């Protein structure tokens, strides 16, 4: 299955394969319903932004794709979540393997308390890569992809915690890239960063989107408008369950939204 996507920073429309899909997905935390009947298709090798007011279930939605919600007791998912058409809440799914395919970057940079090198080598090593030369190659390649190599190549063996906030976040991205994921989930990846570091991460995201499917949750609408190809707007209903209001090409959602609620939110008439 494919969908047509007008890619950001380009006038062309491309036919992209659907990578992630939810079909009537509801998420419950105990008796509280956090998401209601979300049906959404996310294209491969493009950036999809999830926007919406606080508490509308954006992060909960993001965490469906690597089953991070499983870690919360009482969490329960109804409906279908699939990657490449394969349901990921199936019993036969190996969650560790899933999280290798679907990497995640968090709000606060969270490097491990070890060297820059070890931060990046950690994942591949756990997945069985032992040879020094192979690890060296993966570390360099991942740091280059994360646009961090030039800044850290001379301090690979210093602590990752000693880097600046923006560098730490790029280190976390390199760590994700090192295990060769297909999908990268980003939960407010820039909200703890200064504007320059933010723009660097955004630039990096655009480059990564040629090879990876990226889903980003952001409070920053301008960021969503700048960086994403597709955008989805979530809102809370009266019982505080999150629903999908509108989904479409970013270029349309931010200039001519179809739903009045989207319009009101992005123009700051409510929030």
């Amino acid at each position: 299955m494919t969908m047509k996507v007008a890619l950001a920073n380009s006038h062309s429309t491309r036919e992209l394969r659907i990578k992630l899909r939810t079909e009537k997905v509801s998420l419950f935390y105990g008796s509280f319903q956090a998401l209601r009947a979300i049906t959404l298709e996310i294209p491969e090798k493009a950036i999809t932004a999830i926007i919406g007011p606080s508490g509308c279930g954006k992060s909960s939605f993001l965490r469906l794709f690597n089953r991070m919600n499983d870690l919360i007791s009482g969490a329960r998912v109804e409906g279908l979540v699939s990657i490449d058409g394969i349901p990921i809440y199936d019993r036969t799914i190996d969650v560790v393997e899933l999280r290798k395919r679907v990497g995640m970057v968090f709000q606060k940079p969270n490097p491990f308390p070890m060297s820059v090198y070890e931060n990046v080598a950690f994942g591949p090593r756990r997945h069985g890569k032992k040879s020094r030369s192979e690890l060296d190659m993966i570390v360099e390649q991942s740091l280059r992809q994360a646009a961090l190599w030039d800044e850290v190549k001379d301090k690979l063996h210093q602590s990752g915690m000693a880097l600046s906030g923006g560098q730490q976040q790029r280190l976390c991205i390199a760590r994700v890239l090192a295990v060769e994921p297909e999908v990268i989930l980003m939960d407010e990846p820039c909200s703890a960063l200064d504007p320059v570091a933010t723009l660097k991460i955004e630039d990096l995201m655009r480059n990564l989107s040629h090879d990876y499917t990226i889903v980003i949750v952001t409070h920053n609408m301008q960021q969503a408008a700048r960086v994403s190809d597709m955008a989805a707007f979530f809102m809370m209903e009266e019982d505080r369950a999150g629903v999908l209001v509108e989904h479409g090409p970013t270029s349309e959602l931010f200039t001519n939204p179809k739903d009045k609620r989207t319009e009101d939110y992005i123009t700051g008439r409510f929030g």
Partner: protein
Amino acid sequence: MEIRAVFHKKLRAIQDDVLAMGSMVEKAILRSIEALKKRDITMAEQVIADDKLVNEKRFQIEEQCIQLIATQQPMATDLRTIISVLNVITELERIGDHGVGIARIVILTGDEPPLKPLIDLPRMAEKTASMLHRSLDAFINRDAEAARQISAEDDEVDALYDQVFRELITFMAEDAKTIKRATRLIWVAHNLERSADRVTNICERIIFLVTGKMEEIGASRY
């Protein structure tokens, strides 16, 4: 809850300024024709002098729009409003220039005896001014339907232009001494015809503002 009250207040103020600029331009067109009718050179000079204020207003509005884009990251309707304002003021400024064009012809003609009583030219001016006035109402009211109707009225201005043109050609054919004066009146008619075309451009912007669609409406024959 209205969150961006300050921003939206500024955006409304800009639109009030567009209305003010519109009425300055409307006045320029009507007064330039009045000056032509009365052969009133002082009035014509006043139209030319007042055009400076129109140009200043345009830059002032443009500056305010740039400020809002740079500092407020407008989205959706707000963004389309600002983009439309930028386009509308350009059209208004040019309509003002057409008024100046007519005023210059009045000065050029001086106190030469009139070729004929003016009937269709004032009619063209009134029609154009009325289209302009109503298009700005439609802009403020976000009325795409009215915008379509107003731009359809451009055909009437074109028909009057045809009529004026035919009539003046007959004068020139009959008596070569009328050529200079008749040609000047054709220039006046052309200025009015172009002004009405610019009103249809404003109407296109209103449709964009309301629907988000860029749509060319019934291009003028000239």
